């Protein structure tokens, strides 16, 4: 098993494509996405009613190396500043196969 950084991002679904692009540009080519996330944060409650589709989050999970992490964090910060959202980083072991 290999030590990796575990990055979790919660972001407005409208911005999801851009965030995934940032991941790719940072060299992270593996990630998992769960759409239909609801939530609450500084910008209020975001529980996506499907009529307006304005308030919907996505949850992104990516395991990556420390260098990749650094790159993605730098790229992500201005996006989070602009549109809100959360990015958490923790340590994990990746079961290599």
């Amino acid at each position: 098993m290999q030590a990796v950084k575990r990055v979790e991002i919660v972001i407005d679904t409208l911005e999801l494509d851009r965030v995934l692009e940032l991941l790719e540009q940072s060299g992270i080519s593996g990630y998992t996405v769960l759409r239909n996330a609801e939530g609450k944060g500084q910008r209020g409650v975001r529980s996506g009613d499907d009529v307006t589709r304005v308030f919907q989050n996505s949850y992104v999970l990516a395991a990556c190396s420390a260098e990749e992490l650094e790159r993605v964090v730098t790229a992500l910060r201005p996006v989070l500043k602009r549109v809100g959202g959360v990015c958490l980083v923790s340590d994990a072991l990746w079961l290599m196969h």
Partner: protein
Amino acid sequence: MDLSVATDSLLSPPILFFFLGLLAVLVRSDLEIPQPIPRFLSLYLMLAIGFRGGVELGHSAPGAREIATLVAAVVVAALVPIYCFWILRRRLDVYNAAAIAATYGSISAVTFVTATDFLDRAGIAYGGHMVAAMALMESPAIVMAVILARLALRRSGVKNQAVGATPDRSWSHLLRDALFNSSVFLILGSLLVGIITGERGQATLEPFTAALFPGILCFFLLDMGIVAARRLRDLRASGAYLLGFALAIPLVNALLGIGVSALLGLDTGDALLFTILCASASYIAVPAAMRLALPEANPGLSLPLALAVTFPLNITVGMPAYLALIERLGS
């Protein structure tokens, strides 16, 4: 104003189901239309209204008046945001003023669809080109609002953050979003299918696009009632000024619509649809577009106004009142 028309409208199944939805939230029932269903129903409504409009349009080549109506629709949709922006700037920052102005310049397809159902019930005819007018009125306000915001920001010397400033907020993105957003695309696309396939297409699709229509509309408005009622409590954040705006500006816009209809000499049905388009506010396409183009604006401000105030106003007292006015002017 003929009271029986008003009562008929208020007591029609779609409107009653809308009230039922409101009530469900009020008494805290757990009634809920689960998530992708309402979206599906709204896609259905757009496909059906587009297709039926297209078949209708296919019957005869659009004349000068039809084309004038379409042009007028675009012009009005671009004009409304200007005075809305001016009014809103009294109290709001540039971003939110522009976003709300866009909301009211654009249209609500569900309001339009409810109005066609209202006309069907009243036995009043309307032209297929009004569907095209609706689709054309969705986007101009979006573009206009962004222009307004840029001008205002430049004047106030703020370092420009709106469209064009960064590559990901480019005009080409904005225009694509505005022109090809799903509802514009589906309505115009279905219209085209309707025009091309005409009577023969209609014969096979009728049970789906016409017979089911009132029932699906009821179901959808039930959901709209629930969603609108949930947004009601967000209104507190809006304050009295915005609340007043959301109640008054639809009437102003309706009067504009009635005036333009009279100038163009539209028939009663077309005039009502044109008026309801002017009076309605977008709670789907515009908030989504604004989140991308003007992310500094708070959708929690514009959305409850459009959804929980203006939409109910238009489909309950609005429709019959506008009709009464149009009929009085006509006779």
